């Protein structure tokens, strides 16, 4: 019993170390983070301006509603991007800095290591997403009187479990291919969102893409967040989305851990777990 509690204590301290390291990195790269945030704001504005542009070319839409739909899509895209980016850095950044061998020979279990990265990613991602949403909503003067932000946050948190599971799968790619692995993570992010109705209803997709959308957690995250922010839906109205996200999370996290472990074993077998690839 004492051994187990000591082991658990070590793991929790190790997990805090993963988060501590990432906080140091944010502190040291804060100006780069601000610059990247400005790029994200600019990128989001270009998407959300589409809602203003449609009436200008003769289309008839509810501008405020479409603006909000696009904004939620862009914010979820940015959030997912941060989760994937931070999890991919589990390997990619460490390899670039030359710390990968030191980190991977530390007595920290891989699930705790990856979950630590995921928890930091959620915290950092939520702050960034909230700021992005606030800045762009203020820019367009959106009046979201009905918005149920706590419900939207809960949906995003539950969705994050699945996003982290998928992020773990992409995190292993730089271990297998040091040159191209990171870019493949962006491919996964893009594929996930294109079938999930990021800027459009899933119903406009071809049948086979609609089928894929049912297993994408982003579909339920987008639907749930939009319902909460545009219609003020509460948690009792969002049980379908939350249950779907929980089920996908229950599958994707163990699958992500297994995939990473398999990739790590491959890297250790072939000598790829090292700084220079």
């Amino acid at each position, binding site marked *: 019993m004492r051994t187990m509690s000591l082991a658990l*204590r*070590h793991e929790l*301290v*190790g997990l*805090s*170390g*993963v988060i*501590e*390291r990432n906080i*140091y*990195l944010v502190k*040291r*790269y804060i100006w780069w983070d601000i610059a990247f945030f400005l790029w994200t704001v600019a990128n989001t504005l270009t998407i959300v301006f589409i809602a203003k542009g449609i009436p200008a070319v003769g289309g008839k839409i509810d501008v405020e509603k479409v603006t909000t739909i696009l904004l939620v899509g862009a914010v979820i895209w940015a959030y997912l991007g941060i989760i994937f980016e931070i999890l991919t850095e589990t390997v990619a950044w460490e390899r670039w*800095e*030359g*710390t*990968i*061998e*030191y*980190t*991977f*020979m*530390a*007595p*920290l*279990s891989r699930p705790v290591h990856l979950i630590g990265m995921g928890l930091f990613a959620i915290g950092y991602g939520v702050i960034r997403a909230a700021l992005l949403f606030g800045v762009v909503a203020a820019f367009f003067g959106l009046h979201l009187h009905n918005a149920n932000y706590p419900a939207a946050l809960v949906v995003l948190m539950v969705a994050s479990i699945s996003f982290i599971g998928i992020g773990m799968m992409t995190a292993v790619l730089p271990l297998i291919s040091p040159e191209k692995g990171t870019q493949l993570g962006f491919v996964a992010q893009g594929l996930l969102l294109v079938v999930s109705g990021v800027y459009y209803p899933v119903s406009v997709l071809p049948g086979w893409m609609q089928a894929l959308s049912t297993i994408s957690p982003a579909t339920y995250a987008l639907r749930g967040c939009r319902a909460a922010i545009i219609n003020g839906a509460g948690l009792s109205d969002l049980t379908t989305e939350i249950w779907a996200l929980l089920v996908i999370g229950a599958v994707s996290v163990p699958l992500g851990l297994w995939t990473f472990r398999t990739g790590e*074993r491959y890297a*250790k*077998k*072939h*000598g790829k*777990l*090292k*700084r220079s690839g």
Partner: protein
Amino acid sequence: MKALEVHNLRKEFTRRDGRGKRRVAALKGVDFEIERGECVAILGPNGSGKSTLVRLLSTLLLPDGGDARVFGHDAFRETRVVRRLVNRVSVEASFFKKMSAVENLSYAARFYGLRPSETRDAIPEILRRVGFPADRRDEPMENLSRGMQQKVALARALLTSPILLLLDEPTTGLDPRSKQEVQQFIREVRAEHDATVLLCTHDLAEAESLADRVGILDGGALLCLEPADELKARYNAETLEEAFFAASGHAFENGEGGDHK
């Protein structure tokens, strides 16, 4: 109980060249043992398999055959236990370069289960012991010289109180003064801690001055392992370089590549 037992350890890598893929042996059935508290130097030129050996013992590689036990624990099956017992300093100090020495040591200590309350005083103290200036503790690592970075690497390794210390060319590329300071610190660590040291180096003088026994690794094969004096006597050599030549059949810097990964 032996600190380290290595039996018939083999590792091959796949190399792609103009003739396609081929398997190249990095370690060819290496056997040796180290007693607790002993310092053993493995001497070999670049490409002899030294780093492969250290990376196998650091649990960063899986072998193609043979086994290794660290204080009785299987290095490839009981990795969590082994990782708690081992730490390593390699040729290049591995740090997040924008982070300071204190920040790098701090998070690394957590990975070994050390809480903030345990490292608050321990980190400044260990940095002081390795001769790291107190006024530079919070500077980014990228501002520090190689010698200073290597001192921080030693401090990081010792912070976790390893009982097996793997040193993979810890003084390569350092200026003579830094090299002497690092070597002196290794002596102190041996004298004051109950640490066993495996030193892989291509610095003949370093091997002779620090180690109880010296092994010659060439082309992935361990040719001999004995005290430096006995090694020289066996090959009727006056220097380790001559002994290396006699044992391997070629000059020290012309080793046959074995350290392919």
